[in-house]
């Protein structure tokens, strides 16, 4: 047993840290500091810089242009990225769609789509959920009917993350109405510029937009855009969702949020002293930091031996704990801000986006973005499979109940 980072891993961390320091443009860092959803331009610019280094797709196998890092090193890389306030690289294309494409897609499909993802030029959305079928994919109703060399797509998707920024959508559709619900599902790649598609942004409680409803009305999709085999969409979706769960439980992001929280607590004053010296605040912070350490080591246990099925069991736990922890950190940061934590901060009415240079917010610089984050984090225990679903999964698969 050697439960700490090896010397090689420590050197790797220094290499990554130096690269980011040398290559991350200042204006990107500044905008990411506020932690609103990063804009597409920033994500694309940074992805291209990383791509030149061969680092834009840490999770991909070497043959498709991944760096071939161990699970632990992927984690270190992500941690250093968050730590430096680098914009996140888009996730849907690189981490969800691409693995399906290089695992199940045709050679032509790989050649056509993977390079754009790797370089940050092409952005993807996923079209899974439908109104009335949240976590219950088998009941989806959007249909694709074969019509010569094309499919004709009709239906509606919802909770489509970043759909309003995307070029393409990975769509689950029903291609066979006759067979059992799970067998009639296929996966299609659809150009979002196709006629008949309407994207309607859904405003969330932070007054921002990250998710959308997408309507499909007689949308024509070339048959060559079918992923793998017709009727196998359910298998691909399960594969994709597994990848979604075995991520890092957002620990690097949470650790960065804690650093930000510490910064706030050092600047805010309570009873004439820095909030950081308030015993009750310190106790809450310590509890959060300890829970984060525990979560981090649970993640590292998974990553140190990614193919051990026992470790896969732990992965379902870290989703639950990680999502709850993100809420607690965001709420404590908001509480730390005092009155300013109650203020809505929008640059233009009803949407936070890039903040104008001359914007004079009613909260201190160190509090920008905090209240929106505290609100939006309510979603972390819902998306990606609500925690209720995760707990049932844990009870069945790990506890055998």
């Amino acid at each position: 047993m050697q439960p700490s980072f090896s010397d090689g891993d420590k050197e790797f961390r220094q290499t990554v840290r130096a690269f980011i320091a040398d290559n991350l443009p200042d204006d990107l860092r500044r905008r990411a500091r506020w932690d609103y959803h990063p804009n597409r331009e920033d994500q694309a610019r940074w992805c291209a810089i990383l791509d030149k280094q061969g680092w834009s797709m840490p999770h991909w196998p070497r043959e498709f242009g991944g760096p071939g890092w161990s699970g632990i090193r992927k984690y270190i890389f992500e941690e250093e990225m968050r730590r430096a306030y680098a914009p996140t690289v888009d996730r849907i294309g690189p981490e969800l769609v691409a693995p399906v494409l290089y695992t199940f897609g045709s050679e032509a499909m790989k050649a056509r789509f993977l390079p754009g993802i790797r370089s940050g030029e092409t952005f993807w959305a996923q079209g899974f959920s439908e109104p009335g079928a949240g976590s219950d994919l088998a009941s989806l109703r959007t249909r694709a009917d074969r019509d010569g060399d094309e499919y004709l797509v009709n239906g509606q998707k919802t909770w489509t993350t970043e759909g309003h920024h995307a070029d393409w959508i990975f769509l689950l559709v029903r291609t066979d109405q006759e067979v059992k619900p799970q067998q009639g599902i296929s996966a299609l790649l659809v150009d979002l510029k196709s006629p008949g598609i309407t994207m309607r942004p859904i405003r969330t409680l932070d007054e921002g937009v990250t998710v959308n409803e997408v309507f499909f009305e007689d949308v024509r999709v070339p048959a060559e855009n079918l992923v793998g085999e017709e009727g196998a969409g359910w298998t691909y979706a399960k594969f994709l969702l597994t990848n979604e769960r075995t991520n890092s439980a957002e620990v690097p992001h949470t650790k960065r949020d804690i650093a930000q929280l510490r910064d706030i607590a050092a600047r805010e004053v309570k009873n004439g002293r820095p909030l950081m010296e308030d015993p009750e605040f310190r106790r809450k912070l310590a509890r959060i930091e300890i829970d984060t350490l525990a979560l981090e080591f649970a993640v590292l246990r998974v990553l140190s031996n990614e193919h051990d099925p026992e470790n896969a069991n732990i992965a379902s736990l870290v989703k639950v704990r990680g999502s709850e922890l993100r809420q607690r950190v965001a709420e404590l940061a908001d509480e730390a801000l005092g009155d300013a934590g109650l203020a809505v901060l929008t640059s233009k009415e009803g949407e936070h986006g890039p903040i104008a240079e001359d914007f004079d917010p009613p909260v201190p610089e160190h509090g920008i973005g905090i209240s929106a984050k505290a609100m939006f984090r309510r979603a972390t225990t819902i998306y990606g499979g609500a925690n209720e679903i995760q707990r049932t999964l844990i009870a069945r698969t790990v506890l055998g109940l």
Partner: protein
Amino acid sequence: MIFELTPEQQAIADSVRRFTEREYDWDSRMRAIRGSEGRDPAHWAVFAELGWLGAGLPEEAGGFGGSAIENAVIAQELGKALVNEPFAVHVAAINLLASSPHAAIAEMIEPVMMGETRIAAAMHEAGARGDFRMIATRFDRNGDGFTISGAKSLVEGAASADLILVPAMGDGGLAVFAIPARANGVALRPYRLLDNSHVCDVTLDEVAVAGDALVAMGDEGELAFARAVDEALIALCAGALGTMEAALWATRDYLLTRTQFRVPLANFQVLQHRMADMLIEVEMTRSLLFHALGAAQAAMADGGIASVDASARAAAVSALKAQTGHAGLHVGREAIQMHGGIGVTEELAISHHYRRLFVINRLLGDEAVHLERFAKAVDGE
């Protein structure tokens, strides 16, 4: 002990509910909160017309013969419909006016009750993090009048107020002043809170007022301020109770109608038990509201003068606020979680319930402030 409303109190509740059903449905509300200041001025006129603005004031103070109970009844119904009007602030303001020994101040009560004069109360001090007991704003005597300097935050309704009531410390202890909102030296910085209420930071830079702007000072000032805080907190918590009830029952209805894996969500035992826990929190809040109303009645029976009753009221009100903050966050979060994705959208009331409860937890002291105030009041410190 009688926990039922009198027929008169029930009539007030009914009149508020008629208003919220007929004039404050969801679409009207969304229109109102997207307007300037998040309100439709016609609504406040209705409040005045139906007598709600004086319902909680004893007759001898110029009101309609009620008490904190009437205010709680009104606030609870407003809270159910998420009515975005500064009713709790009004309660603070009118109680401050009614506590004043000065005739010039008492004369303001009627126009305020009639909705003719708009009045805000600056109960939060900038930098005090919701602890209303920490007052750094200063006053100095200036001939027959006073000069006031300081910074207040989260002053709801200040942008449309004629007068702002301002507590300040100085020679003579705690004093409260009625300051014209457009007086020289008064600067307002408006912004919006997460629950769509519109507030201002109010900066007072050597604001000069005449002697008749004094509401109360010294022991009278302390008593007036304590009464206003406690009465406003009761109204605030009663509103939160209404909001919690709305979130609870909306969630119940959602669980009954929504199916997942072809089973109604209502059948999932985990959700049943969590709903039971939400209900317990709601009922415990309601119980503490009753308890606080009893304490407020007892304190008012002594004209708010007996410090033992004022201290019992402080304990009871802080118990209520600590529970309300705690319960509100719990109920709000669970309501969102059980709704799933739809719960975090701007389009559904559920996220608005949560945001309102989130804000209320922090207004006039969060759970920690009130646990400490409760402990002090109980131990007679």
